[in-house]
């Protein structure tokens, strides 16, 4: 019997793997079914967007920001807009801010629907995904009417948004929200409270509150660990201080606090909050211009600033340095997925291989946002 021995296995997951949400690779060191460690290898989608910013100027960079995170491009648009506006001290007109809030909240719905849909698909439940995508398509239709694109929107400009809401769009949007809210309950009944589903998600990838802050997790991943923090609420930007909404946090209802189920439920509950914000925004939107007067030859004074936007994947930080010319000296985006990827190596220790997929999906990482 002394000739029998066990051996550690090194497996390659990705870069082309259906559940890695883009082009991601993990080097998995496994002992049977249990992982010793999963080492993330990123960079397959690096398009040097920060370098491009230095070459194309302020206005010209706006369409490139769409590509930072194409699942929620409105937020990257807004981030770049806000950074440039802060550098040059430009005030966005009230209606422009409302248009931004409406566009981004619809985008948050679309992004969260994709996240919760693929969460089910990744662990083997195919049907909920089709339901989520069906709703997302309708939101894409609405956004297409707004800006002409379904994925890379290029809707915002420095100083506001490119176009006002089209005639009749408001009523359509409100009608969609009336349709969407009951669907959410249906979706919950279909998958969220399914016993098998909860068993797969609860107690997987537990992140404590201290760890979440230490690794700089943001957005639903941070709130899933029980920290009530939302940039929209706590450091209000745009017109978010005028809306009444809650910040859902993980409570550990099905397992330990900060597990995959908590992060999933935070997203589901945020869908409801976004609907709440949208209803108020569509009702309160004032008349007026949507775009401030910004020179075509945009040259903000020399200086630097950082702004933070609550994107669908959480606090997105834009650090911009201007040298007084028409081209930014340096732009750096710190995205939610980049931070979330940093914790996977630690969380994967001792996890089952099948649960790695759950872990990645519950952190809602989007590969282009990691690599930029």
């Amino acid at each position, binding site marked *: 019997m002394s000739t029998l021995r066990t051996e550690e296995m090194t497996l390659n997951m990705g870069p082309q793997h259906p559940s890695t949400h883009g082009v991601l690779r993990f080097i998995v060191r496994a002992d049977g079914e249990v992982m010793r460690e999963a080492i993330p290898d990123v960079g397959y989608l690096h398009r040097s967007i920060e370098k491009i910013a230095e070459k194309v100027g302020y206005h010209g960079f706006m369409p490139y920001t769409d590509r930072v995170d194409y699942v929620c491009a409105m937020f990257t648009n807004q981030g770049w807009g806000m950074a440039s506006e802060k550098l040059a001290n430009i005030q966005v007109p009230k209606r422009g801010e409302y248009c931004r809030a409406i566009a981004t909240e619809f985008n948050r719905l679309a992004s969260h629907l994709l996240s919760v849909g693929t969460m089910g698909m990744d662990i083997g439940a195919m049907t909920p995904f089709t339901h989520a995508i069906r709703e997302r398509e309708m939101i894409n239709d609405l956004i297409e009417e707004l800006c002409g694109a379904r994925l890379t929107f290029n809707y915002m400009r420095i100083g506001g948004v490119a176009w006002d809401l089209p005639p009749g769009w408001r009523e359509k949007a409100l009608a969609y929200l009336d349709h969407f809210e009951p669907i959410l309950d249906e979706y919950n009944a279909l998958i969220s409270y399914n016993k098998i589903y909860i068993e797969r998600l609860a107690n997987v990838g537990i992140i404590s509150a201290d760890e979440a802050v*230490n690794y*700089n997790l943001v957005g639903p991943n941070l709130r899933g660990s029980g920290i009530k923090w939302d940039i929209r609420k706590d450091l209000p930007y745009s017109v978010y201080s005028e809306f009444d909404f809650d910040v859902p946090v993980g409570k550990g209802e099905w397992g330990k606090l900060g597990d995959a189920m908590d992060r999933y439920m935070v997203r589901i509950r945020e869908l409801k909050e976004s609907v709440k914000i949208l209803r108020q925004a569509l009702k309160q939107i004032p008349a007026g211009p949507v775009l401030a007067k910004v020179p075509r030859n945009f040259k903000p004074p020399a*200086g630097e600033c*950082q702004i933070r936007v609550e994107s669908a994947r959480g606090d997105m930080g834009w650090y911009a340095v201007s040298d007084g010319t028409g081209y930014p000296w340096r732009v*750096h985006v710190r995205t939610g997925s980049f931070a979330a990827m*940093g914790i996977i190596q630690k969380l994967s220790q001792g996890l089952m291989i099948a649960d790695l997929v759950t872990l990645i999906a519950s952190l809602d990482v989007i590969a282009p946002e990691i690599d930029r």
Partner: protein
Amino acid sequence: MEAARIYQRIKDRFGEHVLEISDHQPDPFIVIDPASIEEVGSFMRSDPELALDCLSNESGVDYKDRIEVVYHLFSYSKRHGAVLKVKLPRENPTVATLENIWKSANWMEREIFDLLGVIFEGHSDLRRILMPEDWPGFPLRKDFVEPTEYHGISTVRESPIIRLDPKKK
């Protein structure tokens, strides 16, 4: 706490290690001697008045005559933030890692190393993160010249726009 008061507190504690306090708008910052960044960092995290428990952003900037590493810190409990900077020489830019104070520094420092070539001393896993391992040079440096090919793959592409010349048959 306001940024100016945070910086004053650090100045009181570290004296000559603080090289400059700038009230630059909109984001004031403080410049620290690179040799003492670890000490200042752990004070900012552990001091109960500051409690800057989150390293929210770390970025590198090449200013042609120097390289700056910029730390954006934030405190969830106190709801205030601070911006730290270190200025490094362009030849051999080296600074101590803050990975042992804030875990999030691990990946962000790898990115700065990858794109700007800053060496973080004591980092547990300092290797390229976004670029291929054998990529020459550091792309976000201002004097970086893009190679024309990489392993036989051209990095230059002809314009796909076909211009129709009516005279040409």
